């Protein structure tokens, strides 16, 4: 009997490859899966091609072929004990355990803000504020993601109140290598970053805070306003980054920001009150800077996808965002179509997508 390799996709986002003889029964298959994961065979429910696999049937009966995927759902324990099936699910934030390398220059900070910062390893990582937005939702409490909106601003506040963070930012500013890297991506940014005035803005919590509160009333709070930018094409962001004296009419709403900005600020078609904007033009470059790193791929300090995702992936979004989709699903967003749209709009950033979904603007 031929041996085949079957992919098992579990409902909690894990994937396993099991190589097994097709003459084996489903029960034996489950036992093989149980060796690789912590779900006992009797609690597994397997689905393949629209059928629930029965323990006593052989794999042949279901005509499972090499490379096919079987879905595994964790059932409630047998013998009627109705224990809650919420296992210890670790929050599935795109949290990386490997810190950005630029962190070497950073003072010791609690790991969390840094992880959220992931992106550029700091500055651009501010875009990771998108991440912070989400933190409010399912961070420590693991609570309902629905308080994410409020959390966005709060988390941002906490973030700003963390002196280490500020220190970190300023140390990044002084890190020549970091600046060089930034420059390599976009000379304008580098120039901007060297501008003492801009540095002053970045190191001024008040300004950042007022920015955050500017975001707050809009439909896209915290996470989105920043992180959502991640997926914008490079050309757009580049335009916005011009240290603009011309661009005084930028918007603070998420998506319109990039588009209106590219029209070099002709008509104030913005929806958010922009009084602060006009008085402080450098917001615009700051935004776009922040935007750059909302990209979840940016777990290394300088990913190629720094400005959105230039290497446009060829796979359909449902494949590309498979992991994120599953995360969203676990959090109770079952509308796959909406999820995909939200992820597309947010460049794959789960937190930003959540905010987007909750905003009801989809």
């Amino acid at each position, binding site marked *: 009997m031929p041996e085949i390799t079957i*992919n098992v*996709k579990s*409902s909690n986002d894990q994937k396993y490859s099991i190589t097994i003889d097709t003459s084996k029964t489903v029960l034996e298959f489950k036992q093989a899966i149980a060796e690789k994961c912590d779900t006992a065979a009797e609690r597994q*429910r397997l*689905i*393949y*091609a*629209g*059928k*629930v696999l029965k323990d006593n049937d052989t794999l042949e009966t279901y*005509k499972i*072929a090499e*490379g*096919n*995927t*079987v*879905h595994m*759902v964790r*059932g*409630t324990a047998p013998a009627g004990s109705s224990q809650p*099936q919420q296992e210890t699910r670790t929050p599935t934030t795109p949290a990386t355990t490997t810190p950005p390398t630029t962190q070497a220059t950073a003072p010791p900070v609690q790991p969390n803000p840094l992880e959220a910062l992931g992106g550029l390893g700091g500055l651009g990582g501010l875009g990771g504020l998108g991440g912070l937005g989400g933190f409010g939702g399912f961070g420590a409490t693991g609570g309902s993601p629905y308080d994410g909106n409020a959390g966005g601003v709060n988390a941002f506040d906490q973030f700003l109140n963390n002196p280490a963070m500020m220190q970190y930012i300023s140390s990044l500013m002084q890190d020549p290598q970091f600046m060089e890297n930034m420059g390599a991506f976009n000379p304008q940014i580098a120039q901007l970053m060297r501008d003492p005035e801009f540095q002053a803005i970045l190191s001024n919590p008040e300004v950042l805070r007022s920015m955050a509160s500017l975001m707050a009333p809009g439909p896209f709070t915290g996470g989105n306003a920043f992180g959502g930018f991640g997926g914008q094409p490079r050309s757009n962001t580049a335009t916005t980054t011009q240290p603009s004296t011309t661009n005084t009419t930028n918007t603070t709403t998420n998506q319109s920001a990039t588009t209106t900005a590219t029209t070099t600020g002709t008509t104030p078609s913005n929806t958010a009150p922009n009084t602060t904007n006009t008085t402080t033009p450098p917001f615009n470059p700051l935004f776009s800077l922040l935007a750059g790193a909302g990209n979840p791929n940016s777990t290394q300090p300088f990913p190629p996808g720094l400005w959105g995702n230039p290497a446009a992936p060829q796979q*359909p979004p*449902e*494949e590309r965002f*498979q992991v994120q*989709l*599953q995360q*969203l*699903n*676990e959090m*109770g967003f*079952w*509308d*796959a*179509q909406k*999820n995909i749209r939200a992820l597309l709009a947010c460049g794959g950033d789960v937190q930003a997508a959540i905010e987007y979904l909750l905003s009801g603007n989809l």
Partner: protein
Amino acid sequence: MQLSYIPRNFKLLEELEKGEKGIGDGTCSYGLSNGEDIYMSDWNGTIIGPPGTIHENRIYSLKLYCDENYPNNPPTVHFISRINLPCVNQHTGKVEPSRLSCLSQWKSSNSLEDILVDLRREMANAVNKKLPQPPEGSTF
């Protein structure tokens, strides 16, 4: 007839492959009831109950039938597992096309997966998610 046949099988083959490979978010699954059925008419589907609803942890089985006019005409969809949903006939398990948006406004670009996803959305719908449900395992 001949003309409408090719796209049908072409489309169904594509859907079959997608179903077997398990592309998507893993909440719905589908495949041919009988792998030897060259007309690819009878399909099985499963929907994993959306979390946070009464359907959580349940697996619903369905059968879908694609006639020769698929995908110009929508397939007929029946629940095998008993379920209490407004769009499902409580005697036969048939999904009433008029009650499910993706069937009533069927487009030939829609897929079997779309139907399952739409049904799952119905389950999660605020109005439906707390509806009392028959015991799991009961069938129509």
